[in-house]
């Protein structure tokens, strides 16, 4: 379809564009803003992905490490290790003292049960918490501290700390520290690395990270006795594992999260009274080592608590972002399914109804017709276009009115040289396509008027077929079936697919619903009275065809689609041309829809048309394209961070839906299925391009920039293929 420009005035409002420095600075700033927004989204998605990365349980096998560099004091000493001084210092729990430690919590289900058991037996324990769990269980974290227990850092997401880079390790620790500070009002000096066990298992690799945490101010707490409760070996076995020999003191490792902990809770209820009878006391780390190490949970300062607040807010916003994305994706999925079902069912029925032999629209329309061809610098294409029009087979005869909008390339001469008696050329001062069409209508002698672009070649019987719906006196305008004439190359093929689907499915659906929004400028027919009722073509939108079509329908006329009237148009061959064309289309469509927005609330035919459009065209043609990139974003996100097979299945099923839809459209139009092999490629390139165009034109609309017609480069290669 023609991209056409009549007026070549400079825009008064872009004069700053002549200052290259300012323009460059602006485009840098604009890129920075876009980058900032992308960063924000990526940040939220990555935070979410990082938090959701399920950690392996404590059981994961550790490679045997060399212990040659580990000081013997550490290996043979107690499980509480302070590496901050020049010499490592280890502490052991005193005799008849049990320090119960619970890892991986707080957990909404099991931590309260553990706390209940502890309280019942007047025992205290130390909880090594996961930062991300603290974020999501605020009240529980406070309860742990309020009941006299101690808390320690067990990292934010339970990674294998020796395997992550130092900065990330630091982040894991400081984020957990500050989250605990914000949630409980306490800071902590206790640290337990994930996947840790007893002191004699510390390897060379662990030692470096232990030194690092000591520099950050932590005392590392390993364990003497591993209850092995994560294996769920049975209550008695857990009790046995957690019972020290000969009245010795012990740091006992248990878990209050990470799966079914009912055995842990039951074992605690047995273990504590049993050992208390033997004279054991159940205390926290700093109670056990009173006087030897600092208080483990001093009140938190303002800054750690603020950092915790920031982290909690960040996680909340990230959660919200992801939930929003999922809901939008769900909405988009529903729209796609609804659209596919509606399109296929309605389009197939529409096509059957049209093909049914019978009277069709009524008695044949044989009235004479005027064909208007607006042209600006179309010398390359107008020859074949006008010849095909002038030689149209229509009983009443055709007259062709070429309106030359002050072309400079001899367009008028090309037409004159054709020497066709039923062709007139009218030259008008430069005024634009809408003005040229108005001029053409003024000069047209007949009351049936066909408008055709100068780059479009029609089939011999297209004009006659296009006029048949006028047998129905209520029909005011008819849309033809426009096909891409130059289908070579990927861009040509993709546009071909797009045109076939757009005309054979979408347009049939909108036709059935009575809300066709565009009679394409490439091939459309109007009654003169409908044009007069609509007030002619207006110059205040760039999509004068959409504007006119809506105005015709608001004036009470029916607009229908005649699929057998075929025209072959020249599609843009380069990316830049395509971008410009689509930019103009989507901007023009937005202008036209916005201009006629009042139709939605009006009474009568205009209101009915407006509401039908709002219900059908807006969700499918505006909302869905805006939501479409979600499929790609979430597919990529899911592939890398979530369930990759589910993401792949989701994306591929979308592709399958597209292929089925396109296949139906091609079948309805009796086209070969061969170009459909490019559909998967189209999904990863063309669709995104169209989305960017949509975004660009929406921004232009919001910013109020003035857009002008742009001339397209032509090759003039389109011919009607032989059937």
């Amino acid at each position, binding site marked *: 379809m023609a991209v056409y420009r009549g007026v070549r005035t400079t825009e008064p409002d872009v004069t700053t564009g002549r200052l290259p420095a300012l323009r460059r600075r602006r485009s840098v700033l604009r890129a920075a803003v876009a980058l900032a927004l992308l960063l924000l989204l990526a940040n939220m998605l990555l935070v979410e992905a990082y938090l959701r990365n399920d950690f392996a349980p404590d059981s994961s096998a550790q490679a045997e490490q060399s212990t040659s560099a580990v000081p013997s004091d550490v290996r043979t000493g107690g499980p509480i290790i302070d590496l901050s001084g020049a010499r490592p210092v280890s502490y052991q729990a005193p005799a008849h003292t049990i320090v119960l430690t619970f890892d991986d919590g707080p957990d909404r289900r099991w931590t309260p049960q553990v706390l209940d058991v502890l309280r019942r037996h007047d025992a205290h324990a130390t909880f090594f918490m996961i930062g991300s769990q603290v974020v999501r269980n605020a009240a529980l974290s406070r309860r742990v501290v309020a009941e006299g227990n101690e808390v320690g850092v067990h990292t934010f997401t339970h990674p294998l700390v020796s395997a992550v880079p130092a900065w990330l390790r630091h982040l894991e*620790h400081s*984020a957990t520290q500050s989250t605990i500070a914000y949630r409980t009002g306490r800071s902590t000096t206790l640290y337990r690395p994930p996947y840790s066990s007893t002191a004699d298992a510390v390897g060379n690799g662990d030692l470096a990270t232990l030194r690092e945490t000591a520099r950050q101010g932590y005392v590392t707490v390993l364990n003497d006795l591993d209850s092995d409760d994560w294996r769920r070996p049975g209550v008695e076995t857990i009790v046995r594992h957690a019972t020290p020999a000969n009245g010795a003191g012990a740091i006992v490792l248990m878990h209050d999260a990470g799966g079914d902990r009912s055995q842990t809770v039951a074992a605690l209820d047995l273990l504590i009274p049993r050992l208390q009878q033997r004279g054991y006391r159940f205390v926290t780390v700093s109670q056990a080592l009173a006087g030897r190490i600092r208080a483990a949970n001093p009140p938190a300062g303002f800054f750690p608590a603020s950092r915790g607040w920031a982290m909690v807010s960040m996680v909340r916003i990230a959660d919200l972002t992801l939930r929003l994305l999922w809901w939008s994706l769900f909405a988009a999925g529903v729209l796609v399914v609804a659209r596919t079902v509606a399109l296929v069912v309605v389009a197939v029925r529409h096509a059957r109804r049209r093909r049914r032999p019978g009277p069709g629209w009524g008695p044949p329309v044989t009235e004479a017709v005027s064909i208007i061809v607006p042209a600006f610098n179309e010398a390359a294409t107008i020859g074949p276009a006008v010849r095909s029009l002038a030689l149209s087979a229509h009983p009443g005869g055709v007259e062709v009115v070429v309106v030359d909008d002050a072309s400079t390339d001899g367009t008028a001469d090309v037409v004159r040289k054709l020497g066709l008696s039923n062709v007139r050329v009218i030259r008008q001062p430069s005024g634009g396509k809408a003005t040229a069409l108005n001029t053409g209508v003024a000069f047209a002698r007949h009351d049936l008027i066909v408008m055709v672009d100068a780059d479009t070649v029609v089939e011999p019987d297209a004009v006659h077929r296009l006029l048949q719906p006028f047998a129905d006196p209520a029909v005011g305008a008819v849309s033809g079936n426009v096909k891409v004439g130059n289908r070579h190359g990927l861009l040509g093929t993709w546009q071909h697919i797009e045109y076939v689907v757009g005309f054979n499915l979408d347009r049939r659906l909108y036709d059935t619903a009575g809300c066709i929004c565009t009679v394409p400028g490439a091939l459309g027919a109007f009654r003169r009275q409908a044009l007069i009722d609509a007030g002619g073509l207006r110059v205040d939108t760039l999509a004068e065809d959409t504007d006119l079509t809506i105005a015709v329908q608001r004036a009470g006329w029916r607009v229908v689609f005649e699929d057998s009237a075929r025209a072959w148009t020249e599609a843009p061959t380069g990316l830049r041309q395509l971008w410009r064309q689509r930019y103009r289309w989507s901007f023009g469509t937005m202008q036209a829809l916005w201009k006629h927005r009042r139709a939605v609330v009006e009474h009568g035919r205009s209101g009915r048309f407006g509401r039908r459009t709002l219900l059908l065209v807006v969700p499918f043609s505006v909302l869905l394209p805006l939501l479409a990139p979600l499929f790609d974003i979430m597919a990529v996100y899911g592939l890398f961070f979530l369930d990759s097979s589910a993401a792949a299945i989701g994306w591929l099923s979308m592709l399958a839906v597209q292929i089925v839809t396109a296949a139906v459209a091609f079948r309805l139009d009796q086209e070969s299925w061969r170009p459909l092999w490019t559909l998967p490629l189209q999904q990863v390139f063309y669709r995104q391009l169209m989305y960017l165009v949509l975004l660009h034109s929406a921004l232009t609309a919001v910013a109020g920039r003035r857009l002008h017609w742009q001339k397209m480069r032509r090759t003039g290669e389109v011919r009607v293929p032989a059937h």
Partner: protein
Amino acid sequence: MANQRRREPSAAPRAVGRVTGRVRTGPVKGRVAPIEQAPTEVTRLGDEPRPVFADPTGGRRRRLRHVAYAAGLLVLAVLLAFWLSQLSGGAP
């Protein structure tokens, strides 16, 4: 609207919408002489309708630009401050 539509179509074509240029033509008999040679002159139209969405003063654009810059900078600053602050904490 309906009765208007049924109005008898008149033989003489009428101009619809906005036409730049005024055209005088004589009565047409038989084959039409090339009309592009008819004397025409350019007429000045009154106010053209303002294109939809256009903002001739550029005020909306300027405001939008400033808001976008401010929002972008704010986002960058907040993100940077957040991550730097998170990296700065240790045990008391």
